[in-house]
């Protein structure tokens, strides 16, 4: 286009740009309806949260009785969920996809109950009752405290 001597290159580019900008945005009309965009956001968040949980598990391999990876994920996820959910709920204007993406999808999947329960059962079933009780109560105490702290921090000055 620039080598074409018959049209001024600048003018042609400007014309094309204007045409692109003034074109009716077809993707806007073809957008998914909101319930499906919400489901998609939850699935994408779920993939990210699961990948993060996998990374923590690789970084903190099982060493001894106490399952540190699950403990760290569950407590840090509770803190973040308390903080972010409170922030997002107070945000004005309310955004439509941030809570499904970050809260329901990502942090919901980053933390896990099934692994937690199976770990307790496994500890209790291998004569490590003390570790099982300590791990169960420690996770719940730290998780509840972290969630409470997150909610308090998220509710500040807003």
């Amino acid at each position, binding site marked *: 286009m620039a080598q074409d001597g018959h049209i001024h290159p600048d003018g042609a580019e400007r014309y094309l740009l204007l045409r692109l900008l003034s074109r009716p945005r077809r993707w806007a009309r073809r957008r998914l309806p909101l319930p499906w965009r919400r489901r998609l956001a939850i699935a994408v968040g779920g*993939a990210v949260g699961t990948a993060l949980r996998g990374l923590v*598990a690789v970084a903190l391999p099982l060493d001894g009785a106490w399952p540190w990876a699950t403990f760290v994920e569950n407590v840090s996820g509770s803190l973040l969920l308390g903080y972010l959910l409170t922030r997002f709920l107070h945000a004005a204007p309310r955004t439509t996809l941030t809570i499904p993406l970050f809260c329901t999808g990502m942090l919901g999947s980053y933390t896990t109950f*099934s692994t937690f329960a*199976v770990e*307790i*059962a496994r500890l209790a079933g291998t004569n490590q009752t003390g570790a099982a009780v300590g791990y169960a109560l420690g996770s719940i105490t730290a*998780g509840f405290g972290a*969630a409470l702290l997150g909610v308090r921090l998220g509710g500040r000055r807003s």
Partner: protein
Amino acid sequence: MTAVGMVLAGALGAWARYELAGWIQARAGTALTLGTAVVNLTGTVVFAALVAAQHAGVLSSGWVTVLGTGFAGAFTTFSTWMVESVHVAGGRVGLRVAAVNLGGQLLAGSAVAGVILALA
């Protein structure tokens, strides 16, 4: 390959959690934490059954990672359980509700997992 499968299964698990918890919550009325409780207990049954199948030599560890750590891990949630407990814990009655929610899910979840693992 297993890692990719785990992440994709996690996406499905999160979606399934949203659908099931929402379906229950729409019928549960004032029981604000019932959706998460049901999701957590059913997911624990799934994960424990997968681990039991692995112990029995029926299932490879790769499938346990994809379906257990990926799907059931994302299907169940600890953080929502905690934040919901904080939300219902206002006042004296609320504190009791929160304690029942915390203790109930903990006892039911670990008991269910223990029974399934013991059966294998």
